[in-house]
């Protein structure tokens, strides 16, 4: 079924058992992102030290795609330098806009390749990108306040 390419098992697993959910007490930057058209929400804390992301924690409500995506992103981008995280994030963004023509490179994206099927469902792409954009926003804020140094 076409639907199975959207709802990969790994996505439903992360939705039911999210990683890094529950906000840390301290953070370098905290952001709150929403999808106004559907009401998916995520609050996200990012901490960094010496240019390395040391912690990503979050809380949120929303559909399985949005919540699983932030779960996977929070696991994938932690312990990466900002430059590495940005490269992974750019590759994920490109995959989301591939309209089903790309599979994604598992060596870079790991579990996040499960979202490749989402790119065939235009209305759901923003769900998959919500958490990633929140992390990007938080990283920018950390770097503009130099707390990441």
């Amino acid at each position, binding site marked *: 079924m076409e639907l199975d390419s*959207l*709802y990969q098992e790994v996505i439903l697993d992360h939705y039911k058992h999210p990683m890094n959910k529950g906000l840390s007490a301290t953070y370098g930057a905290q952001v709150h992102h929403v999808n106004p058209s*559907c009401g998916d929400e995520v609050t996200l804390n990012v901490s960094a030290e010496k240019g390395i992301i040391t912690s990503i924690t979050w809380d949120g409500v929303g*559909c399985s795609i949005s919540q699983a995506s932030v779960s996977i992103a929070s696991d994938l981008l932690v312990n990466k330098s900002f430059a590495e995280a940005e490269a992974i994030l750019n590759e994920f963004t490109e995959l989301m806009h591939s309209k089903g023509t790309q599979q994604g490179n598992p060596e870079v994206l790991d579990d996040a390749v499960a979202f490749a099927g989402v790119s065939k*469902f235009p209305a759901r792409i923003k*769900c998959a990108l919500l958490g990633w954009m929140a992390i990007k926003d938080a990283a920018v804020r950390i770097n503009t306040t130099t707390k990441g140094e």
Partner: protein
Amino acid sequence: MDLSNINSVITENTKVVALTHQSNVLGTINPLKAIVARAHEVGAVVVLDACQSAPHMPIDVKELDVDFLVFSGHKALGPTGVGVLWSSVLDDLPPFLYGGSMIETVTMTTATWAPAPRKFEAGVPNMAQAVGLGAALDYLTNIGMINVHDHEVSLTQYLIEKLQQVPELKIVGPTNIDARGGTVSFTVGEIHPHDLGQYVDSQGVAVRTGHHCAWPLTRKLGVPATTRASLYLYNDESDCDALFDAILGAQKYFA
């Protein structure tokens, strides 16, 4: 709708009472009579959003006694980007846009306006949409709005009875058929409406999911979003059955 505090909500300071005839989220048909009477008692005008009612039931603006009534084309089998504004007081109102086709006479220092509704239709009219909406309304009129309404009432009854058989499904809004129209919103356990909507879509059933442009209401209801089935003259019982089957399928899929 709770009318017990109507006199403290609509007061001598109230100039305009704008409300919906039938809620696009809950399906509730609002008790207009008491509200219109109170509004007129304090000298306020009533603006009625009939987007969910005018396409679904006979409407008599005189009997409703409202001062303005509006509805959109796309909810009445018509095109997008066009709608209807009716008012008993259009002649008393000044134009809000100036341009071609809305004047009577113009000099270098003065101007007078064409009679309503033309004075409100400045510039190149939205012709194709207006003609399309006219055709849609003629189509509905030929079928007969009372027939459209009767069909929907019996179908809504059928759908609600069907939905009430689904475990963990909660209808958001009245289940009493006298108090509602054919837009039926609901939640199904912990399945997020966008996931539910995606699944039923894959089964060939089109529903709306989200806040239905009424986020404050969704917040008040304490749900992240709802799923909404919107019945109309082209639906029949087999559509309700298909939705029922698809919801049961989604419960298995997301279990």
